[in-house]
């Protein structure tokens, strides 16, 4: 069973269809939620939290219906919203303790966990300061601390690096990686920054216009995507091409000694150099690259909405 299971999910807000027939199962340890502005990322998160009632279809988190079982689901979720969301006149530790108690911890356990969570995110020294006096980066971290304090099974992070300077961003990314590595928490991270998702997630759900544009396992996608190579050669190009085809490469030749290759995983650049040397061919330039998340995203944006790479519709 997946962590999040969507079956024809449709959400209408103010007579507008924001999510349109989403179907798919998210299983990853860390799931990235990507899409341009207005794609429905935040609406999907709000629906998973039970803030919006689906007009059609269902959404399930850990097998529980997001509307009927919202109290139970929320008990197991830690949520870090995108915008400022805190109680400014409370100290950091009191705010995190309050949230932990609301999540179901006893008063004593909540206080203990609040201290631990604040130290964990790096706010230990400022935990008695009022949240309203925190910098933007600290406010992001205190939101993360309150989401973690009660030990959720699913952590939903909505634009966690929003407004952070490069150092604070790196720290946030490292924290997310650590949480993922610890293994007891599944993550759902919404971001418009491909790099953040690329660094932290193993599965990605790309939304476009309220529909699923792509749902794929990033690691598998990278593994299955073949390496591309472009060569500029001088010499007996025809013979060279025949030889490298013999290695299992797919080739296309172009005027001026240019060759484009798709090479299997077991072939390395060194093998090409060896053949070139044997046949007296000079390799003047070599470009090699694999599909990045950016390629996956751009391909998803070009595709018609409704197609998935590895999900069902």
């Amino acid at each position, binding site marked *: 069973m997946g962590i999040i299971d969507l079956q024809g999910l449709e959400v209408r807000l103010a007579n507008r269809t924001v999510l349109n027939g989403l179907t798919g199962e998210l299983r990853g340890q860390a799931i990235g939620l990507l899409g341009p502005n207005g794609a429905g990322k935040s609406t999907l998160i709000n629906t998973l939290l039970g803030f919006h009632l689906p007009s059609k279809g269902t959404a399930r988190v850990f097998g529980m219906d997001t509307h009927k079982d919202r109290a139970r689901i929320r008990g197991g979720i830690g949520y870090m*919203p995108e915008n400022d969301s805190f109680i400014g006149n409370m100290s950091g530790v009191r705010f995190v303790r309050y949230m932990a108690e609301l999540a179901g911890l006893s008063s004593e356990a909540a206080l203990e966990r609040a201290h631990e969570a604040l130290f*964990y995110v790096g706010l230990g020294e400022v935990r008695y300061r009022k949240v309203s006096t925190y910098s933007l980066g600290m406010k992001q971290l205190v939101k993360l601390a309150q989401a973690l304090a009660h030990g959720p099974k699913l952590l939903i992070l909505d634009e966690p690096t929003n407004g952070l300077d490069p150092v604070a961003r790196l720290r946030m990314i490292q924290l997310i990686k650590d949480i993922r590595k610890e293994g007891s928490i599944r993550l759902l991270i919404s971001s418009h920054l491909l790099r953040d998702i690329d660094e932290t997630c193993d599965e990605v759900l790309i939304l476009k216009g309220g529909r699923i544009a792509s749902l794929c396992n990033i690691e598998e996608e990278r593994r299955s995507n073949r390496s591309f190579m472009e060569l500029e050669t001088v010499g007996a190009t025809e013979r060279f091409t025949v030889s490298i085809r013999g290695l299992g490469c797919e080739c296309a030749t172009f005027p001026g000694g240019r060759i484009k290759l798709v090479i299997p995983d077991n072939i390395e650049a060194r093998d090409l150099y060896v053949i070139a040397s044997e046949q007296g061919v000079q390799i003047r330039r070599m470009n090699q690259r694999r599909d990045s998340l950016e390629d996956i995203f751009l391909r998803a944006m070009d595709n018609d909405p409704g197609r998935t790479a590895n999900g069902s519709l």
Partner: protein
Amino acid sequence: MAVYKRNYTAYTGAVTPVWTRVLVLARYAFEEAWASKVTVGLFIFCMLPCLVSLLGIYLANNPLARTLIGDHSGRTIAIDARFFLKVLQVQSWLALVVASWIAPRLITFDLADNALPILLSHPISRFGYVFGKFIALFGSLSFVTWIPCLLLFLYQGYSSPVPWTASNVRIAAGMFAGSIIWIAFLSILGLALSSWVKWRVVATGVIFASVFVPAGVGAIVSAVLRTRWGLLLNVPVMMSNLWQRLLGAPSPINENLSMPTGAIAIMLALACCVCLGMLNKRIRAREVVRG
């Protein structure tokens, strides 16, 4: 910054029942309300009329004390429904002052910093959120209304040489019911208005205005249309009518200002419904932008 790296550990302890989360909200709201020195000052101020009433009851039941303070007239203060009606009225209007100070503190801090998405992402419903705040406000107002009123009643029963309590139970029941109705109404009104005004000072003013401005409008309506139904917008008159009937006290106000109890009940219920509608509109984790 910690000098050594800390690792995240999952929580494996017990979890409290879901219904107790409302009490968590109420407890934090109560602490928030009473953390202010102004609240404590207001509470002390609200106890002054009770102390005066206590002294009155003491003197009424103690001829020797009256003699000692030089009162040889033989006249005593009548400790009856009229006396307790006055006590209730004074305490109830002081409760309005307390409510207009506390209610904005309970809601506006959450709204000003947009805390509702985080608060409501926990296992607590919108109703639970409002109910938790309501409990805190209702409890705070209880300290200045029915609790001191009933304590004064008990003291009168204790001090009175005749079996006074048994024959005047209606006064106690009336004070209790009248206070409960008033502070429940004040709590809902205070929370609803506070949820629509982000600035605390303005919210305090709006709560006062919501009680007294309609009274002026009602007076204009009554004068223009030559009817007494405009009084249904006059909360002070409506509540005085209600308290007087609940305590069984003789009417202290002009008969022209008398309103049917049913009409008063309907008006209060309508006002509460409007307030609940306002809360329902405002207390949301997310606002849906139309268009």
